[in-house]
């Protein structure tokens, strides 16, 4: 049985694969958003002075870093509906269970990324904002966060790619994402090579697009004026860090 490129190409353009790929990306996006929001509050909690804010944040990160994502998904889909009747309703789909489950786990890792990004912003920035009369919340939103985002962007891109791949774990809770789609096809046809190869191509394309998007986003955070860029382009100057002359 040789590699049959007709089967391979048929799968590559099949609706099933496209739907599976879209689901994988969608799970990754929803869980990353959830993880970033939870992770931000955990990061702020972990850097807080008050012990009653630090302790729960610390516990959260400790707990979800320890538990395998697969186990969290199984608990989300199988155990929770037994305990919480409301989750037996139709709206609680494998997609929601997978997104929330992966989001909860990922939040523990995002909180570490966000925490180190927040800590990397120079103390003088907060001082300057406060000296202008800005409230602590304004200082966070207008001064600290924009700078922290730039630091957090590359590792977050990594996490996003990880999530696209982790979404394949959702096959255990019957979500027909990309890898499950391939596996289902294999089980019927036994054309392993062709079906898996099609999945590889999809993953490569997804991650390539994400990398390009990340690159564009990082350019937006370059903090240089366009006019100066064209002027300096031949000098290839590296912008000096703030405050060092």
């Amino acid at each position, binding site marked *: 049985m040789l590699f049959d490129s007709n089967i391979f190409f048929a799968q590559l353009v099949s609706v099933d694969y496209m739907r599976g790929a879209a689901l994988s990306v969608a799970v990754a996006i929803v869980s990353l958003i959830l993880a970033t929001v939870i992770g931000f509050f955990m990061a702020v909690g972990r850097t807080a002075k008050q012990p009653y804010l630090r302790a729960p944040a610390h516990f959260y990160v400790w707990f979800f870093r320890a538990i395998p994502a697969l186990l969290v998904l199984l608990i989300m889909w199988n155990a929770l509906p037994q305990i919480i009747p409301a989750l037996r309703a139709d709206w609680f789909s494998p997609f929601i269970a997978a997104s929330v489950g992966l989001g909860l786990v990922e939040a523990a890792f995002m909180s570490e990324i966000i925490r180190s990004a927040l800590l990397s912003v*120079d103390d003088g920035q907060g001082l300057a904002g406060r000296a202008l009369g800005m409230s602590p919340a304004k200082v966070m939103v207008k001064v600290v966060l924009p700078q922290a985002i730039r630091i957090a962007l590359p590792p977050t891109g990594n996490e996003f790619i990880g999530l696209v791949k982790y979404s394949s774990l959702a096959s255990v809770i019957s979500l027909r994402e990309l890898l499950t789609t391939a596996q289902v096809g294999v089980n019927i046809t036994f054309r392993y090579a062709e079906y898996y190869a099609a999945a590889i191509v999809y993953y490569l394309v997804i991650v390539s697009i994400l990398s390009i998007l990340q690159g564009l986003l990082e350019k937006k955070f370059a*903090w240089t004026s366009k006019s*100066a860029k064209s002027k300096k382009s031949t000098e290839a100057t590296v912008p000096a860090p703030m*405050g060092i002359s």
Partner: protein
Amino acid sequence: MTQQPILQVRDLHKTYNGNQVLKGVEFDIEKGQVKAVLGPSGSGKSTMLRLMALLEPADSGQILLKGSRIGSREHKGKSVHLSERTLAIQRQEVGMVFQRFNLFPHLSAVRNVMLGLTSVKGISHHEARIQARDMLQKVGLDNRADHYPSELSGGQQQRVAIARALVMNPSVMLFDEPTSALDPELVGEVLEVMENLAESGMTMIVVTHEVRFARRVANEVTLFDGGVIVEQAEPEEFFTNPQHERTRKFLSHVH
């Protein structure tokens, strides 16, 4: 002078980790005066400025701006710190310029100057831009308005920082060694802006090592050492006929 001093500092104390940094600092400054503060590093000069900018609370003592107490209040015979919200409002009255500029690197020069106007004073974007441009012109940087801090020289960055503080229309401007982080050839442009500001009647307290600037621009020169004010006099008097041995010793090092 009979008018009330614009800023009065009374018996200011501050301790960090058991280390007494300020041990009862007292002085007045009249409106439109320029006070230069000299002193060795670690003498508490910068701490005093931070306390006056309300960036850190004093352990005890009072700061009065135009006769009313700021930063803390009296409650049942004890001094209590004000809420962060009240402090934020009071801070607008005091402009602060930092040694390392502390410009916001993610904002262009004009946006650095605009941020206080839009986010603190609630001024519209359009109006804030006009005011910020105006202020940048006063520090000679209207042609650099759209450049980011990383694209400006240290001297230009510090001038933007001065504009950023000035645009809030403070009653007093505090300078914390504004030229210490600059290459020698960039010091002049910053001092020039400060001198113009002094001539325009701004009340200024300048912690500095620039003895020539202190002599030429200041109305009063202060030597700070060991957490207290050692000597306080008019520039001529201070530099030619200091009353304290400590001042003579300090001047022999910097001259």
